[in-house]
């Protein structure tokens, strides 16, 4: 084979692989939207009806408990995690820490970023056992917040890094303190920071392994901060394993709701990142 034939072969391979990946993604999204859309649109009420007493067995009622559970768990978790993540990113980026310490913390953040979510679940579970509590909404929030923390820190860190240096220099030049400078830097990078927070929210709302053992897999409406609860991904996981065909079909409706939310969040984050690239000198396009 001469080198030009080789070149043609491998560019075809590269093109083919990319096409395959795109095709798989379209397949996954299409199957979820079509299969789930049919179930959901024939009876949209199931997403807004509380579950009946034998929901997992007979499919009476709907899965409002999981929708609300997702909101009550992932919402507060995102707020907590965002506060921590933005603070960490500020600490690492501005003049609080030495470069060496930043490198060390970044290494740990990378490792946490790669840690399987089930480990966070087991970790929070051991804490629950140690303090003698029961699984509840609160511990679901804790687990999701821990899970989101490295993800959001990574995005925020990236956003702050691409904020122009001139902002920092100008604020220092006016006699601002480090904290005031940090606030101005965050403001300059705000769209990127928000995009990162949205991505963290999307990842948090889609994760099942962290809440599986910590929120309690409840089949009732969330009753309070220290009562068992559940989220959409956990519900889908349980529904898919059900023996009742109707409950199994509800899994696709729940997946439809979940994927629409996640796609919407990604879209929002993309739009924000796009605006960001336009207004920041030397901003990247993504």
């Amino acid at each position, binding site marked *: 084979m001469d*080198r030009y034939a080789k070149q043609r072969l491998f560019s075809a391979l*590269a093109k083919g692989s990319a096409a395959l990946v795109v095709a798989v993604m379209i397949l*996954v999204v299409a199957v979820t939207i079509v299969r789930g859309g049919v179930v959901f649109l024939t009876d949209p009420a199931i997403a807004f009806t509380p579950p009946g007493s034998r929901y997992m067995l007979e499919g009476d009622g709907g899965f409002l408990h999981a929708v609300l559970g997702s909101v009550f768990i992932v919402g507060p978790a995102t707020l907590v995690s965002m506060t921590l993540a933005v603070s960490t990113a500020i600490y690492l980026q501005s003049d609080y820490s030495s470069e060496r310490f930043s490198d060390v913390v970044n290494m740990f953040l990378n490792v946490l970023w*790669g840690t399987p979510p089930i480990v966070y679940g*087991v970790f929070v579970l051991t804490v629950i056992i140690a303090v003698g509590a029961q699984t509840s909404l609160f511990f679901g929030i804790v687990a999701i917040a821990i899970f989101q923390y490295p993800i959001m820190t990574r995005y925020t860190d990236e956003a702050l890094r691409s904020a122009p240096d001139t902002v920092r220099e100008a604020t220092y030049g006016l006699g601002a303190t480090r904290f005031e400078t940090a606030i101005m830097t965050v403001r300059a990078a705000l769209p990127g920071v928000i995009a990162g927070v949205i991505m963290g929210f999307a990842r948090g709302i889609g994760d099942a392994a962290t809440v599986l053992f910590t929120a309690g897999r409840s089949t009732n409406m969330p009753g309070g901060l220290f009562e068992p609860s559940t989220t959409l991904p956990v519900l889908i996981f349980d529904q898919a394993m059900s023996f009742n065909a109707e409950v199994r079909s509800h899994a696709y409706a729940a997946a439809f709701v979940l994927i629409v939310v996640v796609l919407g969040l990604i879209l929002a984050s993309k739009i924000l990142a796009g605006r960001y690239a336009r207004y920041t000198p030397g901003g990247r396009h993504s």
Partner: protein
Amino acid sequence: MSESIESTESNTKRSRIGRRLRIERLSSYWLGGAGYFAIALFVLIVLTLLYQSAPLLSEYSIVQMLTSSNWDPAQNEFGFMPAIVGTIYVTVLSMAMGTPIAIFAAIYIAEYAEGRAKTLIGSFIDVLAAIPSVIFGLVALIVVVPFVGDYLAPAVGSSATGLGIFTVSLVMAIVVTPFMISLSVESLEALPDELRESSLGVGATKWETIRIVLLRAAGPGIFSAILLGFGRVFGATIVPAMLIGGQTQLPDSPFATGQTLPTLIVNDFGELMSLPLTQSALIFVGLMLVVVVWLFNFGAMLVRSRLQRRWQY
């Protein structure tokens, strides 16, 4: 008269500076704490998991548990071998399927695609990476499971329901590919254009440029992307739990049902959790996961910095 005005002015100035400095000092405590949070979390996770798996470790020897294939928590038999073999099976199979496609697709995105096509495919990859894994499992239940059970397994002369190690590997390959692609694209795009120009300038074809120059220069980044992908598959929970069939035995073929370390936790959690030793055993599984995944991660970082020095362009 004018003196007193000046002094009140300087007083308010001084108090304002005092307040700003107070805010500065307080905020630096908080930010400092946040800076240490990652390290604290890491240490806390290791210590808690170690402490809680101590009851099991004091009762049985690690070597015996890791090599025994008898898993029956109700009888106090803790052999992790089937789950370990299942995990390795899944990891190796799905990396074998996912890695070549990920690298080629990354090459396409970074080197061939241009303009709108590039942006579009890039966003497709991002979307694929953000789809919750439970949805992959759900779609696989109606697409991949019948395909494997009805066509693929009989075609290679093995009977199967479609649930099993191969199915999990295929789906995990799909889950982990976009993740490896976006990391690889990042390291390919970070390369300076002079590399491409000078290679093409001395008469290399585009493929020769990619193979000899670009893949080598981006090698450390791509290699660490693959290692991170390994870690992802190794710790994957929801997809294996939905698709592997959950039988704790040594798998005899790629189409057999089995168990991975994370599914062991999912399947045996609940009813068996009330037994303290089982509880400790499942927490020990978590500890094993953490240790292996962290080794992969640290390995990826080490490889990256070592190779970067050696494969300098």
